[in-house]
């Protein structure tokens, strides 16, 4: 019975995500109507542009890749009760470090060079995450503030680097191109899609494995769900938090590293349209499940791709996609509202705690 009710609970979080998403779509339609656009037309263009052909679907996957990484990064922090708003900055660190390694001609075979770039990116991101964890554990600094501030420092420092010491020839603030051999290969000839998406999916599987099967995952769950009980059980709460931030930063760093070695091909100033923050919406829609994040990343990726297509086809501004994304977060973070709407609350109460 309770197995069933557990499953019901889990399903209900999926149901909540689904309903939230549909509500977000619905409300965005209403907003479009108010602004004098035709929502049905808009959505058919978005679907057409994101899923309508092999090319559009590969574009969707390209857009989804960074979102999957940042979604995972944010989720890991959150599991350990940390709100890592620094995913964006940690991603920049990873991207910059990977670009530096990647553009330096090294006497290495291409694959090894690529690996070196990715690993250095992971380390760079990880360390900038761990710094936050250290400040939190050692001095009790609120991670929301330290990450937000560190974002400014990292992003502006990277901007300085690509504007002055590392600036490549030309007008654009960007580094030199990454050595050809150290770029991630294309998956299908003739399409832009690289193996980056595969790395993202593998990352999700690894995260799932770690959370469910390892000591570290177990301790993160315990700390996140009841810090005092974890402490009582001899788990070093501070250590777990630091490791979680290291892990979160490493995923963000991998995101940056994968970006510069695939679609970016170099570090370009301001390459991210806020991937780090979109990760929050992705994790929210996925209700923090690793595989859910892959799916949510693809959904948001599709919206983004579709929106670009929409921009070419009509007057409707692409910002509508941001509106949808924001609406999703609002609805997902109000599970009680959704439960009340679908009447799941009553079902849950009846099923879970019978006679008391």
């Amino acid at each position: 019975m309770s197995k069933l009710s557990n499953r019901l609970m889990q399903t209900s979080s999926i149901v909540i995500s689904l309903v939230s998403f549909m509500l977000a779509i619905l409300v965005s339609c209403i907003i479009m109507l108010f602004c004098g656009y035709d929502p049905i037309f808009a959505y058919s263009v978005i679907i057409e542009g994101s899923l309508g052909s092999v090319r559009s679907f590969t574009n969707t996957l390209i857009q989804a890749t960074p979102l999957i990484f940042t979604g995972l990064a944010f989720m890991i922090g959150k599991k350990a009760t940390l709100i890592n708003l620094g995913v964006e900055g940690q991603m920049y660190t990873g991207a910059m470090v990977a670009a530096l390694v990647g553009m330096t001609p090294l006497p290495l075979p291409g694959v090894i060079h690529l690996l070196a770039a990715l690993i250095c990116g992971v380390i760079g991101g990880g360390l900038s995450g761990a710094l936050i964890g250290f400040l939190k554990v050692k001095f009790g600094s609120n991670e929301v503030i330290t990450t937000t501030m560190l974002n400014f420092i990292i992003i502006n420092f990277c901007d300085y680097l690509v504007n002055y010491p590392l600036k490549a020839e030309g007008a654009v603030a960007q580094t030199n191109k990454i050595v050809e051999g150290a770029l991630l290969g294309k998956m299908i000839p003739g399409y832009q899609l690289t193996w980056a998406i595969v790395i993202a999916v593998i990352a999700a599987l690894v995260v799932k494995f770690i959370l469910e099967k390892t000591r570290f995952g177990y301790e993160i769950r315990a700390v996140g769900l009841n810090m005092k009980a974890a402490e009582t059980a001899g788990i070093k709460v501070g250590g777990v938090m630091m490791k979680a931030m290291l892990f979160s930063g490493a995923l963000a760093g991998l995101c940056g590293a994968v970006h510069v070695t695939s679609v970016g091909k170099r570090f370009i100033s301001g390459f991210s349209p806020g991937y780090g923050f979109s990760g929050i919406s992705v994790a929210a829609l996925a209700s923090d499940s690793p595989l859910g994040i892959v799916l949510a990343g693809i959904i948001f990726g599709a919206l983004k791709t579709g929106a670009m297509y929409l921009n070419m086809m009509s007057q409707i501004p692409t910002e509508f996609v941001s509106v949808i994304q924001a609406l999703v977060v609002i609805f997902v973070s109000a599970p009680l509202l959704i439960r009340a709407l679908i009447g799941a609350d009553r079902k849950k109460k009846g099923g879970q705690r019978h006679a008391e």
Partner: protein
Amino acid sequence: MNSVEMIDIVKQYPLVRAVDHVSFSLGEGEIHSLLGENGAGKSTLMKILYGMTSPDEGEIRINGKPVKIKSPKDAIQLGIGMVHQHFMLSPVMSVTENIIVNHEPRKGWLIDEKKAEQQIQELIDRFHFNIDARAKVQELSVGEQQRVEILKAIYRGANILILDEPTAVLTPQEVEELFVIMRNLKNDKKSIIIITHKLKETLAIADRISVLRDGKMVESGLPLDNVTTNDLAQMMVGREVELNVRRKNTNLGEDYFRIQDLKLSERGVQVLSGISLTIRKGEILGIAGIEGNGQTELIEVLTGLRKADSGTITMGLESIHGDAHTFLKHKIGHIPEDRLTRGLVSEMSIEDNLILGYHDAPQFLKQGMLQKKNIQSYADEAVNEYMIKTPNARELVSSLSGGNQQKVVIARVFKQNPDVLIVAQPTRGVDVGAMEYIHHQLLQLRDEGKAILLISADLDEVRSLSDRIAVIYDGRIVSVQQAEDADELSLGLLMTGGKEARHEQAV
């Protein structure tokens, strides 16, 4: 005429019939105790009466009139008030503000605060609630907060009061004060239903009792003449229950766990002022005391959660320093005071909770990987052995009743075969059956030669289990005596600092 009549009530949940053709009546000006184990249907029956859930069959009459109660709002209108175990008060607001919320007396557009305060103070004085209407709720003790909840119900016109386990959170003194208030309310013709596990309290306060077992009413409105706690326990559990499990220890060993001169201060206040105790192998040393006299801090120091300012802890010949992990590794088991804050991660599975703190044992962990198979079979074994009522060990702990949650904590620690046990409030909020079981387990471990420190606010528990009893008062151990020599009265005096004060005068 009866205030409440519930006739032939049935409530069916998907897989359980929580309430099965139950009839219940409450007389005017009566205190009626509703007894039953966790899951017997007491709470469901009361939720029906308070409109929080609706019955599938049956009829409810209030003051003789058939009614339909669809929501707590209906219930309040019918003069029914309920005080839940968990209070619903805003800590930063005053007593008055908490009480009048939603029922504010008005003066034009404004709330008439003066009038409200006056009304409330009148109620307070009339029933001897003994609180200040202007005090902020956060400044009140738990017992006082509870009185605010009762006041709230009365202010809203309740003549029928449902108190859900009101004494579970109270100190013995506060229980006495609550009973005084209940009697005052009764003299004012108010009718009270009290849900409780505590049999002694039932005998002390109730006029009649009703007993639920597995959703059925096994005793309805029994007057309390010539009834003993043992009779009550038997009615609840449906078999003979050994309430006061005294068993002499036969296996008393050498001094083993030694605490010497532990001192701890917190924000300039001395919370532990030189505590020294020695526990022998095969002995239960009970610590009696009113909550807040240093017990929590002592437990934290003895389990490595907090460092004492000075003093030593030794096990055999080895002195122990370090954090909670070190203490666990030294086979010092810990049953925390509050299972939901320190004991369990309630949103994790029973299985995960059964290894919490021991999850790095080679049996469960190899090269950083959890050994799922071993953990599963270990957990299934524990569920069987400790009779944890659940379909399987993969369920969340939050789906268990309080008693079964406590069994998870007990199973976790006991199965690891600790040499020393720090046991705090082992049976708080658990039903009679689980309590009996836990007591037996404790005694068995003692007989196996473990050194056990038992800290409990329940004096009966301390007295029935301990071989020796120490009394803690104001961060000091004020007496240690053989359990046989300790009578309730003198312990009570020691616990409130009475005897010691006299002792000091004499010196």
